[in-house]
């Protein structure tokens, strides 16, 4: 039997965050009078070193065997104080935490009510800590491999950092080539360096890296396991081309008689039904698009040109999807973003008027390796003499995306610059606010202004081809309010470039579900902490990088990718993870071996076995996650969750309902 309970209670002021609303001294006096409390203190910042020393010293000097801290959310500092207990020789599970900041002082203004609530929460914590038992965490080794999903710039950076650190990376990309959106760009703001020139060396490094196993044209199907030991099934989609034989010569695409709009050229150019997405593709292997391949659609009765012309004999119509099973200790999701479809805003005339194009289409048009070889031209081949760039198409708009997409102002300036440089057209930039917040960005805005681009502060109402003056005839008329002049403007132009919002991937919800991570209200993946852990998710061992979290420009995506890599490396280099200690356990004297726990558990943790001729349930501690569902279902009350036992929860409820009642 354990000696009598000796409880220490510590109340944090958190500066004025708690002390401004909760009477912390009264709270400390109140706690001192609770049963078995031997010391009760309040302190300005308990999470500081001197704050932690208070409880460490008391554990040693006063022989405390239970500790309660009332402070911020346990999601913030439970870990901190458990560690402090451990450092002073107390089992970290003999600790309880009361949340009197997020759940009390920050949400209630009335000091009396907030102090009363804090007393209730603290009393419940003190009552509960009586029931805590020391628990032991177990260490399990971490698989040193990392899975990176998505090979745009963020995923590539993350993969390279880990691979260069000497660890194996599986890089999964759903498209036929890696590169993401960045490889589609012409130049990058504000330095105007060529995007391909800085991206292709990285792509090539990925393709040749001995530590990177690239699974392009592949998608994750299933994820199981947990931090340190994930098991992943990847579907490697059939390319109908033997990867080992294909030399990427491109003859098949030249000879393929079936042409479809190229995804890479955002519809401005065509590709074959067998194709290599772009010249610098990694892997440089052809892929057959089965939906457009006449050979496949006719079940081998028609065409077959690629088979005939491929000298390497790489075409393989017998190829089928393959399921690759792999194991990884850490996972980084860098799945990127989609571009908002501006035809959802019909008044902007996208897909109605030929010369209303998106910024990404313009990007391909100005790119020297693009379908027009870098020539900016209208649908009829003429050079535009005037153009309007419309910012915030779908962004900062209550009807579509309320958030700012962060990069559009800057690439709009870049496009304005290229228009001026290449065509000397009159360029109008129609913006709500100019947001040029990065290094060198404001200076770039100034430079482009000086180049003669006309900026009009106002949201565009309409783009029309209905002319009301001679000057407007044959033009697109952009109608907007110039909010600085306070008057409506009609601007006749040859070309309109729309800057659409960056939105979550259309399959973001499926991906989130597969990896058991959460999305924000916007649909982007939710980070563990918006300020301090932007690369982590609520699931240990799964990290996020790049625009799947929120719109970012290239430098931010690179930093984010590297942050995720550092987090994965931290896990791998540590080499082991501790498993959940608060898991289910069976009281064999009560268990009848009915097997309900076995049926209800999602993780196959409980198993009914024969023990001394009696059927009883046993729990596989490595599989149990501590959700507690089995304990609710157990009809005999044999199953319980350590640290969340019936007695612990019941005593809290008693404490929390006691005051008003008694």
């Amino acid at each position, binding site marked *: 039997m354990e000696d009598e309970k000796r409880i220490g209670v510590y109340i944090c002021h958190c500066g004025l965050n708690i002390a401004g609303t909760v009477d912390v001294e009264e709270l400390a006096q109140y706690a001192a009078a609770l049963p078995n409390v031997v010391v009760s203190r309040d302190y300005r910042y308990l999470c500081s070193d001197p704050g932690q020393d208070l409880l460490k010293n008391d554990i040693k000097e006063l022989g405390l065997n239970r500790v309660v801290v009332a402070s911020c959310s346990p999601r913030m500092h439970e870990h901190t104080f458990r560690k402090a207990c451990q450092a002073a020789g107390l089992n970290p599970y003999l600790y309880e935490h009361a949340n009197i900041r997020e759940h009390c002082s920050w*949400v209630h203004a009335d000091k009396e009510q907030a102090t009363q*609530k804090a007393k209730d929460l603290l009393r419940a914590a003190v009552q509960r800590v009586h029931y805590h038992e020391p628990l032991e965490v177990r260490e399990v080794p971490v698989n040193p491999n990392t899975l990176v999903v998505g090979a745009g710039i963020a995923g590539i950076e993350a993969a390279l950092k880990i691979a260069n650190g000497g660890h194996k990376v599986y890089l999964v990309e759903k498209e036929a080539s890696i590169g993401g959106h960045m490889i589609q760009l012409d130049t990058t703001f504000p330095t105007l360096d060529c995007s391909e020139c800085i991206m292709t060396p990285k792509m090539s490094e990925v393709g040749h890296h001995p530590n990177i196993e690239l699974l392009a044209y592949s998608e994750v199907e299933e994820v199981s396991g947990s931090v340190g030991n994930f098991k992943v099934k990847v579907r490697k989609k059939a390319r109908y081309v033997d990867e080992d034989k294909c030399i990427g010569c491109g003859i098949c695409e030249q000879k393929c008689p079936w042409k479809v709009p190229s995804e890479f050229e955002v519809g401005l150019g065509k590709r074959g039904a067998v194709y290599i997405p772009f010249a610098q593709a990694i892997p440089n292997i052809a892929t057959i698009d089965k939906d457009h391949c006449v050979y496949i659609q006719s079940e081998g009765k028609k065409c077959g040109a690629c088979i005939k012309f491929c000298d390497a004999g790489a075409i393989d119509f017998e190829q089928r999807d393959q399921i690759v099973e792999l194991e990884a200790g850490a996972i980084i999701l860098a799945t990127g973003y989609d571009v908002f479809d501006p035809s959802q805003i019909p008044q902007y005339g996208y897909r109605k008027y030929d010369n209303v194009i998106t910024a990404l289409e313009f990007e391909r048009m100005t790119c020297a390796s693009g379908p027009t070889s870098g020539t900016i031209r209208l649908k009829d081949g003429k050079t535009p003499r005037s153009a309007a760039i419309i910012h915030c198409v779908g962004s900062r708009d209550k009807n579509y995306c309320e958030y700012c997409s962060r990069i559009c102002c800057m690439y709009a300036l870049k496009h304005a610059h290229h228009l001026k440089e290449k065509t000397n057209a009159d360029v109008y930039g129609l913006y709500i606010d100019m947001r040029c917040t990065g290094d060198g960005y404001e200076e770039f805005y100034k430079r482009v202004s000086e180049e003669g681009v006309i900026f009009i502060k106002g949201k565009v109402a309409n783009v029309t081809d209905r002319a009301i003056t001679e000057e407007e005839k044959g033009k697109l008329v952009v109608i907007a309010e110039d909010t600085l002049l306070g008057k409506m403007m009609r601007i006749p132009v040859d070309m309109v470039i729309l800057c659409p919002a960056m939105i979550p991937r259309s399959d973001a919800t499926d991906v989130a579900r597969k990896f058991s991570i*959460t999305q924000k209200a916007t649909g982007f993946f939710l980070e563990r902490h918006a300020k301090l852990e932007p690369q982590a998710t609520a699931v240990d061992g799964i990290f996020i990088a790049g625009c799947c979290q929120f719109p970012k420009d290239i430098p931010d995506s690179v930093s984010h990718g590297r942050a995720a890599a550092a987090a994965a490396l931290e896990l791998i280099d540590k080499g082991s993870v501790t498993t959940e200690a608060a898991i289910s356990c069976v009281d064999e004297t009560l268990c009848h071996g009915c097997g309900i726990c076995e049926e209800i558990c*999602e993780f196959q943790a409980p198993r009914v076995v024969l023990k001394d001729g009696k059927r009883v349930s046993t729990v596989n501690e490595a599989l149990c996650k501590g*959700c507690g569902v089995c304990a*609710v*279902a157990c009809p005999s009350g044999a199953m319980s969750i350590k640290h*969340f036992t019936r007695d612990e929860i019941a005593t809290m409820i008693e404490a929390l309902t006691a005051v008003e*009642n008694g």
Partner: protein
Amino acid sequence: MAGFEPQIIAFCCNWCTYAAADLAGTSRVQYPANVRIVRVMCSGMVNPIYVLKAFEGGADGVLIAGCHLTDCHYIDGPVKCDAAVDKLRKMLHVLGLEDERLRREMISTSEGVVFARVIKEMVEQLKKSGPSPLKVKMEALA
């Protein structure tokens, strides 16, 4: 029922609703001080006994809130919670407790504002309904 302040016990799952309540705090969204939160790891961990215990202790309302169906850290906890709540409602009817005294919500990490709104709505509703009939009966017996 002038001056009646209902007492609410909220069972909140660690991963979603407890974090949503944290977010309400971080964002300083104000709501009535009538609620006391019990942190559980999963909404599927809430044993009906706990809810009965809360009403026995004198709670006027109970909230069970956790992840949305697809967000569960443990795959299927909310479904199991829903099943338990269905059974629980029948028991509460037998005890003469009205439907509105037990509220089941799915509130994700990012929905701090929703958490605050749910508490406000519950407090308003329970002020109209008055004290729990179970509490009234037990006080009369005492």
